[in-house]
Every structure is written in C-alpha cells, then in structure tokens.
C-alpha cells in the first residue's frame, strides 16, 4: 500500500461560475444554503481508497454503469457532490461518480477516517433553519403557503408565513409571524403547537360580489405534526384556527387545514 502523501491542494476555475450563480440566487433564497457563498476560494479535497476498491459510475445514480475501479491505496480528488453521490477524479484524470456509502470507507491523507456530513434525525431535532411549502383548505378556499423558520432552541422556533388564498368568491393573501413549540423535538413524529398574529388582505371577485378590498389583522392558534422523512426532508401537517379582527361588528373565525413538505438546514 502506497503511503498517502501530503494534502495536495488545487484551485479550480469552475468554482467562479458557481460563485456567480450563488450570488444571484443567494438574494432570493436568503440563507437557504449558506455554504455556497464561500465558493470563491475553493480547493479540492483528496482522499485515499481504503476499501479493496472504489467503484466509479458514469452518473450520479444507482443505475449508471460502473466504468472504472480505483484500487486500495490510490488517491482520488473530490470534485463535487450531488445528492449523496460524489464526483471524483483519479490520479490518471478519469472522472466518475461514487456513492456516499463507498466514500465513507476512504481515508484522509493523514490516515484518519473521512467524515461526510449526512443529515440525520438528530439534525431534524437541532437544525436552526427550516423552509417549506404547504397547501390546503382555508375556510372553503384553497391556500398555498410558503414559510421560513428559525429555531431558538430545539423546542421553540419563530416562523414567518406568506400565503395566497384562492376562493370562489374572493382572493387574498396573508402574512403572519408564529411562535412554534415542539414538546418532543427528538421524536420522528414530532407534534407542535403554534400561536401567531398577522395581516390578511381580501379582495372579493368583482364579477360575483360587489365589495371592497379589506385588510384586517388576524390572530391564530394551531397544532400540527412534523414527520422526519429522510436526509433534510420532512413532511408537515397542521390545523390552525384564525380569528379575523374585522372592522364590522363581529369577528370572523376561519379554520385552516394544510399539508406539505419542508427542509431543514
């Protein structure tokens, strides 16, 4: 077995492209992927094969054929990662894709084991940021929602929601800020309770109802379930009961049911 030599650090020109794209999209995605903005001075990581061999596929997927095998002791450079596949380049310049299970059996140049970040149930409990989309029923109308959340601790998080409401008689949008409490955040099926306030804007459809656009304040309570699926992926279902503080004599009560999916990072 050839002794792993020192870490060879190569700069890469293709990262410039990534950096530009990252800048563009970072504005829209906010902190969706904090790692991308640091692409300016990227160096390639080198690992040594510790398994009897490393299988290189022609594409990042199980079905793509194996076209090259790297022997134990040889080194490969990691060019990039897509889902749980790694694109590597051998000393002879051959490029191919290796899955995460095999990459975890490689060694760093100093002989230590390589650790690859893999989102787990623990990250589901402790991740700081979360974003997702949900759709459902809002008092008989359809609702499509997008939200972003930040965890103050594993139990308590703050969420900002934006929703579009699409009904037969009126359309509208709603924005709200929520406090969410998870009683058992370490559970795969994690129930939560939520409390929030916001603003709802309603515009009646002119063809059916003669009415004016209204903007009212809303308050709500709710409960739901976060279900860890895999990697950074979770399903979410929730019920919220809204009180719309109208300028009329009576407040309006609206019930909402939604399901959707989200990511944490």
């Amino acid at each position, binding site marked *: 077995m050839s002794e792993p030599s020192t870490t060879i650090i190569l700069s890469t020109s*293709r990262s410039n492209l990534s950096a530009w794209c990252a800048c563009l999209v970072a504005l*829209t995605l906010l902190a969706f*992927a904090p790692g991308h903005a640091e692409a300016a001075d990227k160096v390639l990581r080198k690992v040594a094969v510790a398994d009897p061999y490393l299988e290189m596929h022609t594409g990042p997927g199980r079905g793509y054929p194996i076209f090259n095998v790297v022997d134990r002791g040889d080194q490969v450079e990691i060019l990039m990662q897509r889902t749980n596949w790694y694109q590597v380049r051998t000393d002879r310049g051959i490029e191919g894709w290796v899955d995460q299970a095999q990459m975890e059996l490689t060694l760093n140049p100093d002989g230590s084991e390589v650790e690859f970040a893999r989102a787990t149930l623990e990250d589901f409990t402790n991740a700081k940021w979360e974003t997702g989309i949900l759709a459902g029923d809002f008092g008989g109308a359809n609702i*499509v929602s997008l939200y972003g959340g930040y965890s103050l601790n594993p139990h308590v998080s703050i969420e900002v929601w934006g929703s579009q409401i699409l009904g037969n008689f009126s359309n509208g949008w709603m924005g709200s800020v929520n406090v969410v409490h998870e009683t058992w955040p370490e559970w795969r099926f994690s129930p939560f309770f939520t409390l929030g306030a916001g603003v709802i804007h309603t515009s009646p459809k002119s063809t059916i109802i003669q009415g004016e656009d209204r903007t009212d304040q809303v308050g709500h309570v709710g409960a739901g379930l976060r279900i860890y699926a895999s990697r950074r*992926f979770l399903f979410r279902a929730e019920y919220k009961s809204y009180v719309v503080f109208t300028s009329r004599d009576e407040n309006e009560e609206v019930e909402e049911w939604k399901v959707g*999916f989200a990511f944490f990072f």
Partner: protein
Amino acid sequence: MESRFRVLFLITCVIMLSGCAATKNLFGIGDDEAPPPSSAPPGEVVDPQVERREIKEPAIDREDFEIGVFAGIMNIEDFGSDASYGVRIAYHVTEGFFVEATAGQSEASLTSFEVLSGGALLFEDRTLTYYNLNLGYNVLPGEVFVGEGRAYNTHFYLIAGLGSTNFADDDRFTVNFGAGFRFLLTDSVAIRLDFRDHLFDSDILGREKTTHNLEGTIGVTMFF
C-alpha cells in the same frame, strides 16, 4: 502498658500512611518506583517530534440546486396558443426526488367570438402569469449515445404540483402535472424539455368550468 501504646501508635501510623499514599507524589517521596527499564540503547527510541499541521478540510462543492429559464408554447383553453416563457429553480433532495418552483407567463390570443365580433374584447389584460410549487421524480434515469465516443446522462421525470394562475383579472388555484426530459450536456449544464397541463377553474365564458392549459417548453438549466 508501654507495648500497648506502641502497638496503638504503630496502628495509627499505618492507617495514616496508607491514607497519605494517594498524596505521596505531592511531596516527591514516592519516587521509589523505578522508571521503565530502558533496555534499548539510546538513539533507538523513536521520539516523533512531528508538529501536527492544521489541515482545514476544503468543503466539497455541493451541486444540488438547478436554476434555469425556459420558453415554449402555451395553449390557453378557448384563447388559442401563444409563446410562453419563465424561470425555474429546483432542489435535488435525492437522486430520484426533486422539488421545483416555476414562474411563467403567456399571452391570450383572441377567442373565436372576439375574432368574429370584430374587435370587442372580453377583457383587456391579456397576460396570463402563473407560479407553481412541484415535486418531481426522475423515474427513468439513463444515458444517450451520440456517435461512438460520446455519452450523455439523461433523466425522464414525472412532475406535479400546486400554484396559482392570474388570468383575466382573477387569481385561480391551479394544479399542474406533466413529464419532462433532462439532457445533461455536462455535469452542471442541462437542456430540459417539459410538458405540463395546468388545470384551473374559469368562468370567463359565462359558465364555471375546469380548463386544461397545455404547455410545452424547452429550457436550459445550470446546477450549482
């Protein structure tokens, strides 16, 4: 009597010394333990004076996002076909699943009634805009071959999602589904062909009905 005191004194001493045994090294009196015998002659003992280098592992470039533009033709039910274009961003969760947000725009042509009536428009704002949030699955990943020496990775995917369509001064809840083909020119650049059906309810022509609005587009996307 004297011997009894002596015995008592000795017992006390033994107890105290055993109690002090743990602290004997504090006073340097416990050095009677011989150092390990250095049988090897000096010079053979390897003393690795290696300074550990702080190697900061470079982060691996993750390319799970896909962003791109597309253009094509959209057929708006009752309003003919016109050009459509838009943008999309996708996140690849696994090698199979991806989520995608799309925003697009098209123009409504004239209905038969509007053509025959000679200029009377049903409504003024003829622009249709939509957005949707989708879940896709690369159901048939594969390779295509160009000539003898070139192979390109491809995905045939199914996709469906929810969103909203703004058309004729009205927002409508919209369901869309379809299929597409992703042709990866390089590992980071792809050409995409996409076919979707956008379903939303419409009462523009009097009676409320569910409309099917078919769209076929070609686009370029980039992974980052």
